[in-house]
């Protein structure tokens, strides 16, 4: 009986990994072409943006917060990238044009700035994260429309370097996937080895205790939203590079995919629980489920239903796990 229980507990503890492996097997059975290098890298390339944002979202969720504005932020930053590359960066007195690095830096800077607005409202003005970022979601999506005037902005031949980044390879691996891995490792190291990461996790576990330990909780809360803003801008740039287009309609509903990936990775929305590895697995699970459904020609509406069902299942599994470990 106890043996059965502990086996069950281990199964539940590694449920993300187990689901991941199961899906890997199912995927390769359904399609011979699934396990080809090309398909895998394509899949990863397509989900690099969600993956990058998920890493930032993990930090936010670890503190017990949430950011609903990431979808709009992808739209806005994708528009900004295309706009800056095409029309240059308006600096008031002059326009800085023709520089892709400058466009990238400026977009990331603005992403962090917008993220810091959310962070300020939440950490300093004590607005609930859900409400603050819901408002930001609307504001930022308005910005995206205003800058693009409602039309997609296409990259032209002056931006080949950016396009190459979106579609090219380095040592056989697509650039966006490299970027995802770099971000993943940075978050992994942050959470495992840095004071910042330790405190972020502690805040989500017991904010009062952290505050009474003499730590300025607000600064950390502010920083996680700022970091997420920067990473979301990075994802916006990657999307633009991959698709050649910056448009205000990009990223609609993307916040749900990102939150789903983090939750599938076993993170708790009340904070304090979640790892970079599991979040990455969560992203991959989401990617594989999408891939399988496309292979099986499941209509897009049904896909949504299935996706939602999987999220509920993941959270139920988590609840079961914590219940069992409590009883021991």
């Amino acid at each position: 009986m106890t043996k059965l229980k502990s086996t069950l507990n281990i199964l539940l503890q590694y449920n993300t990994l187990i689901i991941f492996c199961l899906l890997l097997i199912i995927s390769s059975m359904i399609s011979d072409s699934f396990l080809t290098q090309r398909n895998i890298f394509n899949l990863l390339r397509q989900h690099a943006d969600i993956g990058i944002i998920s890493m930032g979202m993990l930090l936010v969720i670890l503190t017990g917060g949430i950011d609903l504005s990431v979808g709009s932020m992808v739209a806005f930053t994708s528009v900004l990238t295309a706009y800056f590359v095409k029309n240059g960066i308006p600096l008031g007195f002059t326009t800085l044009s023709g520089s892709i690095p400058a466009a990238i830096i400026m977009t990331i800077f603005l992403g962090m700035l917008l993220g810091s607005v959310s962070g300020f409202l939440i950490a300093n003005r004590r607005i609930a994260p859900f409400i603050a970022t819901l408002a930001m979601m609307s504001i930022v999506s308005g910005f995206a429309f205003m800058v693009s005037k409602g039309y997609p902005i296409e990259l032209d031949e002056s931006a080949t370097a950016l396009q190459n980044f979106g579609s090219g390879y380095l040592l056989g691996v697509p650039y966006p996937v490299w970027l995802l891995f770099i971000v993943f490792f940075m978050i992994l190291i942050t959470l495992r080895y840095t004071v910042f990461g330790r405190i972020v996790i502690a805040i989500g576990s017991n904010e009062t205790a952290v505050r009474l330990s003499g730590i300025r909780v607000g600064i950390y809360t502010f920083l996680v939203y700022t970091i997420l803003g920067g990473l979301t801008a990075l994802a916006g740039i990657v999307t633009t590079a991959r698709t050649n287009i910056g448009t205000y309609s990009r990223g609609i509903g993307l916040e749900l995919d990102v939150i789903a990936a983090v939750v599938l990775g076993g993170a708790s929305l009340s904070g304090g629980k979640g790892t970079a590895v599991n979040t990455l697995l969560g992203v991959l699970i989401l990617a594989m489920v999408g891939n399988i459904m496309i292979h099986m020609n499941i209509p897009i509406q049904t896909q949504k239903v299935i996706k939602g069902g999987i999220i509920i299942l993941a959270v139920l599994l988590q609840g079961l796990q914590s219940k069992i470990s409590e009883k021991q």
Partner: protein
Amino acid sequence: MDQPRVDMQNISKSFGGIHALKEVSLKVKAGEIHALVGENGAGKSTLMKILSGAYQKDSGVIKINGQTASIPSPHAGRKLGIGTIYQEFALAPDLTVAENIFLDHLGSLKGFIHRKKLYAKASELINRLGFDIQPQRLVGQLSIAYQQVVEICKALSQNAEILILDEPTAVLSPTEAEKLFITLKKLQSQGVAIIYISHRLEEIFQIADTISILKDGQITGQVCPDEVTTDQIIQRMIGRQITSLFPERKNKVGDKILSINRLTSEKKIEDISFDLHAGEILGFAGLVGSGRTETARAIFGADRIDQGTIHYQGKPIHIKSPTDALKAGIGLIPEDRKHQGAILPLPIEKNISLPSLWRNYQTAGLINQSKETKDTIDYIQKLKIKTSGPKERVENLSGGNQQKVVLAKWLGGHCSVLIFDEPTRGVDVGAKAEIYQLIQELAQQGLGIIIISSEMIELIGLCNRAIVMREGRIQGELQQKELSEENIMKLAIMKQTA
């Protein structure tokens, strides 16, 4: 009606290997006031939580009115007619008296609230207890004593035939307490079985029919108040000499280290002034809600300071947050260990290093994890924390060991003033003595120590001096030789006659 209303037989309960109750039996008849006494951690609350359904017994039988009963939840307990009044009231301050009383069965009025009927029924209950409280008043506007009456009415509205009161007078003034006793007598005459938990032996002698004494999870005696003396009861409660619990006072009181001048904070404390010296152990006594914790929180920067100044070693300091306090060398060990002190799901080492991460455990933002583990092992040995190792989660430890982890957080050598708020609440006797020893050692090292405690014995045994608070103000100060339960209580409950 010969059978007891409550019959608990051989109840045992343990938490993580520690026996909280060992084969405890308790019988309470209808119309009886049965007092339950014992030290903190003796098992009184555990026993009552098992009866009310908040905890589950490991073994034993509970019979209610002769019927074997299983009480899997507080809801089931209420259905069996068991009402509990805890120290912390479970009232909604923004609802009316009547709504609070009938909160659990507002729905019985077919989904709609029939206010007139509700008010009438509430008035009837309140009158039955001999009080006059308007049922349409908001509970948040009532005094604590009246809120307690509302709690009792709430229990009665659910047809409670068994009423458990956990330290009901801790929050009441003497006149309010007298009123409560009259209420209880009235309920007694109406056939309600009352289980009464209290530390105040005088009042137990005043109202109880039977006294059961618990010690370390076992009943050590069941007596009638007119058969015994207070001393006999205390002896059975403690079963040893009180003095052995406390270390010898070897600390030397030195120079003034902290000076608080006319501190006022958030309308909870007013005009607080006192000095603390290096090497001194200063106690803060008073009833629950007298402003002791609020004083500590204001000095530590956890609550806003509206007026007043704080001088540290003669220099004025401005404390706006715990971070400021810590920079100045002031640490606070909060009263609520589980919610404010420890981070339960994290391992011991991550808890202990938390306040000193930036100061002691990092290079370029990276944590020096081997130093963290090494230091934690040192603390575990020094404080005798019972655990499998530094990586064990704090939630798996017993109360006393959790408290030691919280204490260890502040021993990194960066604090010269430590404030302990109820340092031994929910801690077993063995760990208590160890914590007292530690506090004494810290004072010997020259730290200024403030101890807030509701256990007067603790203040008497440890402190060089004690300040007594009442209703947010300092009521008086007692030197070591003046420290006695009587003197403390006098100041704590009586209005100053100036």
